[in-house]
């Protein structure tokens, strides 16, 4: 369980994170979503006490991270890909981290096998590919067998096989009852792994919602209809209340219908003996919906700045 209360981080005049409050529940994967520079990493660093909040606080399993007697066993985190000395081998890196909590060597071996780094564990981490670095980061996070796992952009740099592996890993961690918080700037990725979403933009909370709700709200596209009787069907549909029909200049057979489900359009066509070639519900993609959400945050900032400039007297 992670709880953030009024988290704020200012760097001089710039506010990276502003009054952010949310909680992350155990047993599900929670996606932490936002465009690059939205404040995801800063927030995660504050959860781990690496950055001190300007105001507000964050607790993990009821306590601030630093107040736990065995923090690695409470929270395992991977922040950015590389938190590894390039001159040290993966094995020794994990061994040193394990030593701080007297975690046995057997567990170090276990996480190396878990992330599939057995072959390269004795090599210097400086020569690791991006994907190997990510796997080592995940091994570090899982070292303490923690109840809460925080991963910052874990799929970055992974090949499709690695991405699939991460998805399954996250789901299995959650199914074991762990709290899993995963950041990403890719909505499509989160739609596949997360059950709950926390969306931020410009350091502010935009949405705290289940993925199902988010998907539903995002799917209000129209229905694409292709028919040789497009003129007749457009007339019939246009007569219905709250239904709008758009025709396509380049393709006379094509109609885009809004306000009517595909079932209703299909039945209407059948009643009048009209032939349909295609009947496709159009879903605004999650990525588009996400961009729409975060664009609002960006636009809000853009509107404020010029008015400030106007108000300020010329120097």
């Amino acid at each position, binding site marked *: 369980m992670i709880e953030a209360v009024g988290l704020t981080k200012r760097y001089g005049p710039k506010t990276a994170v502003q009054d952010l409050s949310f909680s992350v529940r155990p047993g599900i994967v929670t996606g932490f979503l936002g465009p690059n520079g939205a404040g995801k990493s800063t927030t995660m660093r504050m959860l*781990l006490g690496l950055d*001190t909040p300007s105001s507000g606080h964050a607790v993990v399993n009821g306590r601030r991270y630093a107040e736990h007697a065995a923090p690695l066993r409470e929270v395992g985190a991977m922040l950015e890909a590389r938190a590894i000395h390039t001159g040290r081998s993966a094995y020794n890196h994990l061994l040193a981290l394990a030593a701080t909590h007297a*975690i046995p060597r057997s567990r170090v071996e276990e996480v190396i096998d878990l992330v599939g780094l057995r072959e390269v564990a004795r090599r210097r981490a400086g020569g690791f590919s991006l994907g190997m670095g990510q796997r080592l980061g995940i091994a*570090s996070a899982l*070292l303490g067998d923690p109840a809460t796992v925080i991963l910052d952009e874990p799929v970055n740099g992974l090949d499709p096989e690695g991405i699939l592996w991460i998805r399954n890993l996250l789901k299995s961690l959650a199914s074991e*009852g762990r709290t899993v918080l995963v950041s990403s700037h890719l909505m499509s990725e989160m739609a596949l792994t997360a059950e709950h979403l926390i969306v931020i933009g410009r350091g502010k909370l935009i949405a705290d919602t289940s993925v199902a709700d988010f998907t539903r709200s995002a799917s209000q596209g129209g229905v694409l209809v292709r028919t040789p009787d497009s003129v007749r069907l457009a007339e019939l549909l246009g007569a219905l209340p709250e239904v709008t029909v758009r025709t396509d200049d380049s393709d006379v057979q094509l109609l885009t219908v809004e306000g009517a489900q595909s079932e209703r359009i299909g039945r209407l066509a059948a009643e009048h003996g009209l032939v349909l070639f295609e009947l496709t519900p159009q879903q605004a993609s999650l990525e588009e919906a996400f961009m729409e959400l975060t664009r*609002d945050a960006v636009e809000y900032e853009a509107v404020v700045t010029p008015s400030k400039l106007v108000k300020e007297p010329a120097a």
Partner: protein
Amino acid sequence: MSTSIAPSPTPAPVLISTRAGTGKVTMAHVVNAEWIKFRTLRSTYFTLLAAVVADIGIAIASCYGAVDRIQHPRHEGPQHFLQDFSPAEWSLQGYNLAQLALGVLGVLIVTGEYSTGMIRASLSAVPRRLPMLWGKAAVFGVVAAVLSCVCVLTSFLVGQSILSTVHVQTTLSAPGVSRVVFGTALYLTVIGLLSVALGTMIRNAAGGIATLLGVLFIVPLLVEGLPTTWHDHIAPYLPSAAGSAVMTLKQDPTLLSPGTGLIVLACYLVAAYVGAAVVLKRRDA
């Protein structure tokens, strides 16, 4: 758009696992972790080797040089050279270079973590932070002390055996000599420990090493340029001069007494570690 749903009361299952043991973060565990970090980097061994080679190599070279000057006196004659000759100190001159190697290593064991991002992993494991600094200082302090003693004793013994060919050698039991020998080892350790604190405050290898060089070599030069009354009040208290007080056999009026020199060095250590602790605790990692 901002939707939010009431969190459904999911019961938090208790995760019982002993795969990761039940150990807590203790000072002893952190020291062990720092020891693992220290001994698993190749650069550690290169730098330590450089310190050993510099210290003993210079001892051998300078002692052969002294023998040569005594055997083949220049126009002023061997007596002139021998007037101020102190065989103990002569054989220990390598400390000048060895302190640089140890200082660089001291800076690097901290700044290497910042430059690679390792510091985030280290501080995630030890979020109270200060135990990590004490752990590094303890590991590095012990290694530096042992290595310095070995280097300095070897330099002294090898140097004296070379000097014995012209019968100007001394022994550890001669008055003040063991103080000078172990004082040199102590000074090297102090410089190494100061560098760890410097690295913690500056966080950047180039900056840390430059500061170390500045403190050891540039500041004394600048102080030389001050008016005499200022100079006399400042110069003896510089780290290098306080070290000289501990490492010099004969009483030198421009230097502090060995005891006072030791106290001054201790004060530098305390001040540097207070500064390092404050910076480490306060600044975002």
